[in-house]
């Protein structure tokens, strides 16, 4: 600051008489920078200059060559997919790294080249810059503060003008609400508006209007028989209706538990199983990830997203992690032809449980076909319900 103050700005006439170098030094001085040493690094056309020039040009040439290599590889490399059993997999796998290396080298060499211009060719200089230490001067700070507060006082915003202030607040709040509503408002819907046909009550497992029950199918569409599952196995099944395998709320895990395993079922869900076959929704009741890390011996299924664990031997009750509701159980049986069918739809919403606090009862209303029930109660361990297909 002091340097700037001391340097008088020359008049236009004075500047007209100055050389280019003098003007450059003046500019630096006006910015508070004193050039102690300043001048060309080499004599023009000296061998040293030529050598420096070559050293810089080397980087630019390398950059250009890398860029050219990138273009050639991009255009000419035989980059068609080769599967891992092919001996030409190396050629395919090298394509991306080669593009990265050549383009990266082109950028890097260009950067190094530019840096070495500054280091090897640009004028040799030693500059000293005066820097002021600490905060602004006392008088600067006092006057600025006074200026701001005086404006505020004279406008009257500090003590008076209540209408002005509240209307401004209203305007800001209104604008903010409008801005939020535009993108979010469309997402807010009443999920129970359609009564018993509401989205959360209905999945593709719902029997058809004529009473036809929905069969359990594998991913390829084939129906499932009890004998298809070995003891201690898990099969992901889908409703045998068009679009069933892709519906987001329909995926179900069909378990065959060991015959002597002590199993508890949830109150009101007796007979939902078919012998040792149990079907539970695959959609986690936390945030809807597919749970299917099945531990065959402990009877737990784990959700990979947030480590919720459900005990299949105990009504799919959550035993660990953030999920709070059991996995909804699908009532299953076997039809005349020996294939698994869903007896009716789930009796509670599938997936994330934020719409209802517990089974069958919500702040918005109850399931139209199921009596509202208090929080599910599990019978004590000794009293196992009879299971009989």
């Amino acid at each position: 600051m002091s340097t700037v103050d001391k340097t008088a700005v020359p008049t236009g006439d004075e500047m007209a008489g100055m050389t280019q170098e003098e003007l450059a030094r003046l500019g630096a001085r006006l910015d508070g920078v004193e050039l102690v040493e300043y001048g060309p690094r080499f004599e023009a056309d000296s061998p040293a200059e030529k050598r420096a020039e070559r050293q810089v040009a080397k980087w630019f040439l390398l950059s250009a060559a890398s860029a050219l290599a990138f273009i050639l590889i991009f255009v000419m490399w035989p980059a068609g997919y080769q599967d891992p059993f092919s001996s030409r997999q190396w050629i395919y796998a090298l394509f991306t790294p080669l593009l990265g290396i050549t383009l990266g080298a082109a950028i890097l060499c260009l950067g190094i080249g530019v840096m070495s211009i500054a280091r090897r060719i640009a004028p040799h200089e030693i500059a000293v810059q005066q820097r002021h230490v600490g905060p602004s001067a006392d008088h600067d700070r006092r006057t600025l503060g006074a200026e701001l507060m005086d404006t505020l006082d004279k406008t009257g915003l500090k003590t008076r003008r209540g209408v002005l202030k509240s209307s401004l607040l209203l305007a800001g709040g209104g604008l903010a609400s409008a801005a939020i509503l535009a993108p979010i408002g469309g997402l807010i819907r009443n999920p129970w508006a359609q009564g018993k046909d509401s989205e959360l009550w209905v999945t593709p497992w719902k029997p058809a209007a004529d009473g036809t029950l929905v069969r359990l199918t594998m991913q390829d569409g084939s129906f499932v028989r009890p004998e298809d599952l070995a003891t201690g196995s898990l099969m992901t099944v889908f409703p045998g209706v068009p679009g069933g395998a892709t519906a987001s709320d329909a995926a179900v895990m069909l378990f065959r538990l060991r015959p002597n395993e002590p199993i508890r079922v949830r109150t009101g869900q007796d007979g939902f199983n078919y012998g040792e076959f149990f079907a539970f929704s695959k959609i986690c009741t936390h945030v809807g990830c597919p749970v299917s890390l099945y531990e065959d011996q402990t009877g737990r299924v784990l959700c990979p997203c947030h480590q919720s664990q459900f005990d299949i031997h105990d009504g799919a009750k959550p035993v660990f992690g953030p999920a709070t509701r059991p996995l909804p159980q699908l009532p299953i049986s076997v039809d005349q032809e020996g294939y698994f069918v869903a007896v009716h739809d789930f009796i509670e919403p599938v997936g994330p449980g934020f719409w209802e606090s517990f089974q069958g009862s919500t702040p918005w209303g109850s399931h139209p076909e199921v009596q509202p029930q208090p929080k599910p109660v599990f019978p004590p361990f000794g009293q196992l319900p009879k299971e009989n297909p």
Partner: protein
Amino acid sequence: MQAHSGGRFRRRSKALRRVTGLVGLVLALAVLGVGYSAFAPTGNSAAAGPVDAETIAHGKSLFDTSCISCHGANLEGVDGKGPSLIGAGQAAVYFQLATGRMPAKANGAQMPRAIPVFNQQDIDAIAAYVQSMGGGAQLPGSIDIANADLAKGAELYRLNCASCHNFTGKGGALSQGKYAPPLNQATNTEIYAAMLSGPENMPTFSDAQLTPTEKLDIIKYVRASNDTISPGGYDLGGFGPAPEGLIAFLVGMGVIVSITLWSGSRS
């Protein structure tokens, strides 16, 4: 001036040595990797040999010395130690013995893979003995994935296996210290045997649920997943975007900061 340029020369040759050293290291690692993949054992055979009374008797004698304390004299299991093996089948025995998980070395959440104790002949004998006690799932004579459908295998793998073993086959954690092991060490036959028998906490996949053809498709996908050369260079263990982002951030930022500091200190 002379001394100065001499110093520069020395420094440059040191840098040169470092660069050549690095290149040499990379080359040596590459040669090692290629060499390993060329010589690593890939062959496997679990084709059930001729089963006769003599083999079964040999299997029983091995069982009586190595397995009896946990699985019982008549394969009925020992409470609190080991499960019954009646009906466990040849595939289960092959998997457990060929991967060295059995005979168990120590108690734990889960038996780790280890160097097998028994040779192929002994494994076949014990398997034949267990198979003779109540039957169970058996491996097919040959497991040939040459004509298997890779794309179908990938689909089935994602539906049935990926939740525990990771879609790159790297395995993953289960509850209370248990884990789904990585699949890169398992041979084709071991993978087949695991699907058939559902070892430890793995569910069983009967031939009706996944047909033998589908099992071969899945094995082909596992092999392909293991043998794929990562197109991004190094795959950082195949664990996905979290470690990749971490390394990109730490290493990338670190390199940029170091270069900046270095170039600043030189000018």
